[in-house]
């Protein structure tokens, strides 16, 4: 299935105390997922970061599937994270930059996972820094053809985030494919579609923003 899905969580915007309450996280996690925290806790990852990491994996997987199933509803507990792997000697790194972009995750401290929705199995790659979580989803565990980026912005107004994330993605497209007249519109189902001039491209793109962080993903 050719698709893509991403999600961004700004950790400064989450309510850690509320996230740690069972009545909150039980609306996101299933019982089978809670043991996945054991390994992450040993690496010093706070429980609230774990909850939002799984949220970002689930929401990214939803976006990946919704492109081909417009009626799909996002129910976090129906997306089940089966595996979550940390790199050896993992520690949460500080993110001191403004922008990060890549293709695949070689050289990055990515957390890899497998998430299922019914019989569908998808693969996740997430970056967890001190201030953000960025996740992308693919239908294989090879992410080399998955392009991604995230950026810190100063204006958190919804319209600005929406405009900035489009511009951010278009600049990457121009770097890769040349100075074409790219634009992004949403279709009637809310899926972002990349246009080159007036022509709809077949490149699946995904956009996300949360507070002061915007991010994109697409399949190259």
């Amino acid at each position, binding site marked *: 299935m050719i698709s893509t899905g991403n999600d961004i969580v700004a950790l400064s*915007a989450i309510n850690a105390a509320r996230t740690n309450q069972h*009545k909150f996280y039980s609306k*996101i996690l299933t019982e089978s997922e809670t043991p996945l925290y054991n390994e992450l806790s040993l690496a010093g990852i706070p429980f609230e970061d774990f909850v939002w990491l799984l949220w970002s994996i689930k929401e990214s997987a939803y976006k990946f599937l919704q492109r081909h199933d417009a009626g799909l509803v996002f129910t976090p507990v129906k997306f089940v994270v089966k595996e979550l792997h940390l790199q050896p000697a993992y520690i949460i790194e500080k993110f001191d930059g403004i922008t990060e972009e890549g293709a695949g995750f070689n050289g990055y401290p990515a957390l890899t996972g497998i998430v299922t929705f019914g019989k569908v199995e998808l693969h996740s790659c997430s970056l967890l820094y001190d201030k953000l979580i960025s996740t992308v989803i693919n239908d294989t565990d090879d992410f080399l053809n998955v392009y991604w980026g995230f950026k810190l912005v100063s204006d958190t107004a*919804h319209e600005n985030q929406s405009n900035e994330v489009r511009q951010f993605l278009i600049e990457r497209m121009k770097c890769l494919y040349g100075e074409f007249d790219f634009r992004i519109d949403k279709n009637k189902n809310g899926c972002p579609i990349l246009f080159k001039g007036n022509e709809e491209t077949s490149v699946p793109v995904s956009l996300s923003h949360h507070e002061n962080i915007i991010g994109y993903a697409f399949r190259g």
Partner: protein
Amino acid sequence: MTRTEILDELKKVIAPYTTNKEMLASINEQTDLIKDLKINSANLVDIIIDAEAKYDIEIDYDSADKMVNVGTCIDVISEKLNEKA
């Protein structure tokens, strides 16, 4: 509670999670939580939990699925209040 009474209280539940205060002031049953009120999906769980506390009800996953616009939120809250009565 009537649908109008539920709507008035629901506005208070939603208020902290939308920056579109103009739209909030004029919401109707067709108002979409994400598309119209620009509520971040990460806050939908907050709204469900706040609604549970406000009305002393429990909203299960299947009911939460339906809460995409103001009208369906009122439907779910009304249904849960009736079950409790």
